[in-house]
């Protein structure tokens, strides 16, 4: 479903992605782990065209998206195409980025109403369902500043799901949470996985990775070091850098 080939990305002189190849099948859950600064967030942001890549190609359902190759090199695709791609990819950020001037319900309704031009009544029904699904049926009218971190992140997940995306991208969804709130958010993501949602999840929650991931990817210094099943990565890591990383987080 998502194919990455030779992705290169630099910020000024800092080469952050040095040729990343990765393919995600429909319905697959890929967990990306790796040290801080290794380019995990940047990779997700490139898939979502929040960053422009310098080389390589990103395909979504076979189509090249985002940066289109021309004689003059890679050129950013038309705005409507990029918006369309983004609306089929749900993005969940480490620090939630909920809209503070909107209630939980309005946060979730915002995408369907503004982007899909859905009728308010229809969007509201959909959004109430989604908030119910993430366990926040009683928080519909609450504003983000009155929600706990875990509740905020679950609203953010509902907000992304409201666009009925084809795949979800999670960037360390539980890293900003107090430990006791992590479980609730992971449970929601796990439920999505069981429903067959295609997902790329950047996380440091190794228990979750072991349990939910179809494949685990270890990134270091802008490259993929090792890809394998959770069993292969956690029990029989092949590369020294994987072993070092796993030891560092235990």
């Amino acid at each position: 479903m998502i194919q990455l080939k030779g992705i290169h990305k630099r910020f000024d002189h800092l080469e952050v992605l040095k040729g990343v190849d990765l393919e995600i099948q429909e319905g697959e859950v890929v967990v990306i782990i790796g040290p801080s600064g290794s380019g995990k967030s940047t990779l997700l942001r490139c898939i979502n065209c929040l960053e422009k890549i310098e080389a390589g190609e990103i395909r979504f359902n076979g189509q090249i998206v985002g940066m289109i190759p021309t004689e003059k090199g890679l050129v950013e695709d038309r705005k409507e195409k990029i918006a369309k791609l983004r609306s089929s990819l749900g993005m969940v950020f480490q620090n939630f980025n909920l809209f503070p001037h909107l209630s939980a319900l309005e946060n979730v309704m915002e995408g369907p109403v503004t982007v899909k031009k859905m009728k308010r009544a229809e969007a509201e029904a959909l959004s109430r369902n989604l908030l119910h699904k993430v366990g926040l049926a009683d928080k519909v009218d609450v504003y983000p500043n009155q929600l706990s971190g875990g509740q905020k992140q679950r609203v953010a997940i509902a907000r992304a799901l409201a666009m009925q995306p084809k795949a979800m991208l999670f960037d360390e969804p539980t890293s900003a949470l107090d430990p006791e709130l992590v479980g609730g958010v992971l449970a929601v993501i796990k439920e999505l996985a069981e429903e067959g949602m295609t997902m790329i999840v950047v996380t440091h929650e190794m228990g979750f990775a072991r349990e939910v991931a179809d494949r685990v990817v270890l990134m270091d210094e802008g490259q993929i070091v090792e890809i394998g099943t959770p069993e292969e990565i956690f029990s029989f890591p092949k590369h020294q850098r994987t072993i070092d990383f796993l030891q560092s987080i235990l």
Partner: protein
Amino acid sequence: MPTFWDIEFLRIIFPLLLQGAWITIQLTVMAIVLGTLIGLFVALAKLSPIWPLRVFGNLYTWVLRGVPLLVQLYVLYYGLAQIGLLELDAFTAAVVGLSACAGAYIAEIIRAGIQSIDRGQKEAALSLGMTTADAMRRIILPQAIRNILPPLGNEFITSLKDTSLVSVITMIELMRTGILLDVTYFRSMEIYLSVAAIYLLLTTIFVYGIDYLERRFKII
């Protein structure tokens, strides 16, 4: 020497001063409405990814904030008339001059307000598939407005007081009415204290109006 604070004299000048004040109010309202529209446009130009718009926005605020309003009004009213390019009547020249200048300050206020909103807000909006314009309209501006209102209120009060400058281009508003009364009666203290009192009354009403708006936008 005439008695100071002669009620009879105040009865003569007050109706005239209030007529002037009414013109001042009209000038102020037009200056802040048009100035806010200009300011919004120039602020968006300054933040635009399109470089000619950015250049325009930066030139606009650079020139209009860098040249005294008094000088701008002379150029607009006397300068343009002299070269026969455009002969504006005093009211039009006053409104154009005041709103163009207010627009430059308001543009800076709006730009700063927009830039104070966390980048993650725009990214979250874009990642839902919104256009940049939708993200601005639905997500960023509604949040920025709360940061924009307090300095915008100050700017409105400045605009009100700045209308006194258009007395130099023959616009008979509150200040000029005072000057004309003074050259007739030579009772400067009573006249200008009355003018001052009316300005103070107007700015006070403004402060309360803006306070009310600020409270209304502080939803959360």
